């Protein structure tokens, strides 16, 4: 049910001559360690695939335009804006979302640090911040608070939790 049938619905009777069905593609990718093969509408972004087809709503849509970072996930270990990533480009890719970060019940150290530092309020930007923070730490952009701030500036937090986000990233990077 998940991703098939994306284009299954047909136009209703009152429609004029039906347009061509939207082109689809078959894509095999790994999401949080599980291999999945899907047939998707070529227009489907990775973010919409996750949210609308896989029920993985942890990745958030804040702008759908690459401007807010709420949709940040890791693709092959790199942080990307999933709203700007077309699913059809992801053949063979490994995607990690916020849902795949914890080890069973054990939170990833950055998730834990976000709780300890109170690095969020409404929580909507938080999955994106955490995925971006994981990328930031992996990239080694944690030499100073300034470097973390620059490296985390693609992720907007309208609740204004930046000071504590930086602390959470610092805390986690320091532990490595």
């Amino acid at each position, binding site marked *: 049910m998940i991703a098939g049938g994306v*284009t*299954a*619905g*047909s*136009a*209703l009777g009152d*429609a*004029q001559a*039906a*347009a*061509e*069905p*939207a082109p689809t593609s078959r894509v095999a990718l790994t999401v949080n360690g599980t291999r999945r093969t899907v047939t998707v*509408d070529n*227009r*489907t972004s990775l973010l*919409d695939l996750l*949210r*609308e087809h896989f*029920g993985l*709503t942890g*990745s*958030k*849509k*804040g*702008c*759908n*335009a*690459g*401007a*807010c970072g709420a949709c940040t996930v890791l693709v092959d270990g790199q942080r990307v804006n999933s709203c700007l990533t077309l699913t059809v480009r992801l053949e063979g890719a490994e995607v990690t*979302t*916020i*849902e795949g*970060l914890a080890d069973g019940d054990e939170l990833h150290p950055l*998730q834990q640090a*976000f*709780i300890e530092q*109170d690095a*969020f*309020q*409404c*929580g*909507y*930007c*938080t999955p994106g911040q*955490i995925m971006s923070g994981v990328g930031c730490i992996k990239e080694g952009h944690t030499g100073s608070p300034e470097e973390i*701030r*620059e490296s*985390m*500036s693609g*992720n*907007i937090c*309208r*609740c*204004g*939790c*930046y*000071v*504590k986000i930086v602390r959470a990233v610092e805390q986690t990077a320091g532990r490595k």
Partner: protein
Amino acid sequence: MSPQPQAAVGAPLSRVDGRLKVTGKAKYAAEHNVDGAVHAVIVDATIGRGRITSIDTRAALAQPGVLRVISHRNAPKLPYRDNAMSNKSNNPPGRRLRVFQDDRVLFHGQPVAVVIATTLEAAQHGASLVKVHYDAAPPSTELTKAKADKPTKYARGDAEAGLRNAAVRMDLTYSMARNHHNAMEPHATIARWTGDKLTVWDKTQWVLGTQTEIAAAFGLPQDDVRVISPFVGGGFGSGLRGWPHVIIAALAARVTKRPVKLVLSRKQQYFGTGFRPAYEYRLRVGSDRHGRLAAMAHELDAETSSYETFTEGVLPPGQMLYSTPNVQQTYRTVPLDVNTPIWMRGPGFATASFVIESAMDELAHKLDLDPIELRRRNEPDEDQSSGRPFSTRRLRECYSVGAREFGWHRRNAKPRSRREGDWLIGMGMAAGVYDTARMPAQARVRLDADGTAVVETASSDMGPGTYTSQTQVAADALGLTMRTVDFRLGDSLFPPTPPHGGSMTMASVGSAVLDGCNQVRRQAIKLAVEDKESPLYGVDANDIVVRGGRLHLKNNPTRGEKYQQLLSRNNRTHLEAQGSFAPPSGTQRYSFYAYNATFAEVAVDATLGLVRVRRMLGVYDAGRIISPTLADSQAIGAMVGGIGTALLEHTVTDHRDGRIVNANLADYLVPVNADVPDLKAIYLDGEDREADPLGVKGLGEVVMIGVAPAIANAVFNATGRRIRQLPITAEALL
């Protein structure tokens, strides 16, 4: 004061919903899994005013997956009853926008059609294929050029005479740009009909307001609509009203007979929900040579829509913040071809404070007085707008603690006197005030025989941490641990609460929760002291406290028993109570406000005009602090919001067609991590016993007030340039 030990309240606990939020499991409006939901995308008007002459939906309907296109040409007529029936709406006076009921376009971006399709991609593409033709008229969107409504006025003393006779006079004009809330979660609604009953999952700060608005629009009994909203991804005010898209989602679901999910695009937030209106604000100030204020005259014009008159609390600060014998205020709304504004964090007060606090700084400079000293000289003994004493007002203490902690003595009063390389460094401060609002609220409390409790209220948590702070209140009042209290909110089936806004949730809902929990605890105590088999039999109820789920003698903790033992022995599955709170009716005896002093240090690039905030400190007199960790986050977050208002946020409208040209997060700038340095918040210890049973004064707004003027005043100190407009841009400084 509660006889109970306070273990949770006041403790720096982490959020009870933290784990859900960091694992991506907290469900926001668009994320509820509703079987068979289809997608709706709104088509926005591309003119600023006029009429729709034709709508061609053929190409859209021909798209595979597109189920329906609804516009005024085929939409069912909706009754749109007055919502005043329940007095439970936040609709301002006027005639609210009625979706798809006629061919008129009142503002650029107004919904003119909605496309419903089986997939999001098909709905989006379909929406782009709907061809709408218009008979366009030139819109009026310029605040300074349009005709204003009749003013609201306030006067005491004789401001004109006071100004005439004043030794020192200033006549200043300010303009403040429109701000958009831009919470990270877009507004979204999922609507599902079951027969004539409707369930809606919505992003809202007030499930009851949304419920009554839908019921009024569709002519339904209120109880036939259920609104669910367990998590809100930021609001700042934008969720205080049931917006047109909520009605559209419900309408689309009714027409297609399918559950419908409708998510506004980021762009659509700018005209699909409200905003903090732009203001033009003239302030005349008269004082004596020692800085004692003689008179202030405020003349302010604010944006509203052509169809509703939105007003906000922009007058109180000018009436009560400083001792001023002569005050005159003229507040005019200016109807424009725009959508209706709504409250945004620190509504009205933030705007007025920018003006008043900038002017105070200017006066201090003119008189060669320290800005804090000037404010101290104008500290009133009572609220001069009402003659009432202040319940609590510790603004002087905010000044002294702030000055000490911030290192205010290092400020050089002479502007442009501190330089580090290309950077001019300056310090500024401002005072802030916000109304301590309280409204009736209720809560249902149930203590189960297993020693756990469930507390339910219809309230919301848009981020401040309602879940956590209310659990703290409940845990202490019931004598339970945090873990054994399950606090639920965001469902119209739960007991009614006021809007989650205006900083009134803790005082109102918290007091109802406290009352309900106190009742349940007392029931249990009564049960024990009357139960011959209880170790507490015959004891004076007042001598018993509950801690960790165990009732015991205050002075002899070994004598007691657990809730579980007591309830099971008495064959009680649970104890239950409806808690309630209502602020005292009739004339108030006190004037209730929360206060702050906010300090900022900025660096301004001498050649580029670029402003960087270096550090900020806020000191707050906000009554009792239930949850210090969360309160700290709230204050720091508001400083970030205030940095946006001060330096970045600005809606740009093309006045030729009324289009907002920067309706996205790449062009409407909000602060990012690199814009935010060292921010610190200090809450004065204390409580306000007159305000409410919890002694709280509200936090969410007061922490925002004063941020923008403190920054503006620091910019003056750094550069010698007084910018009387927001945002303060590099262009303005060059």
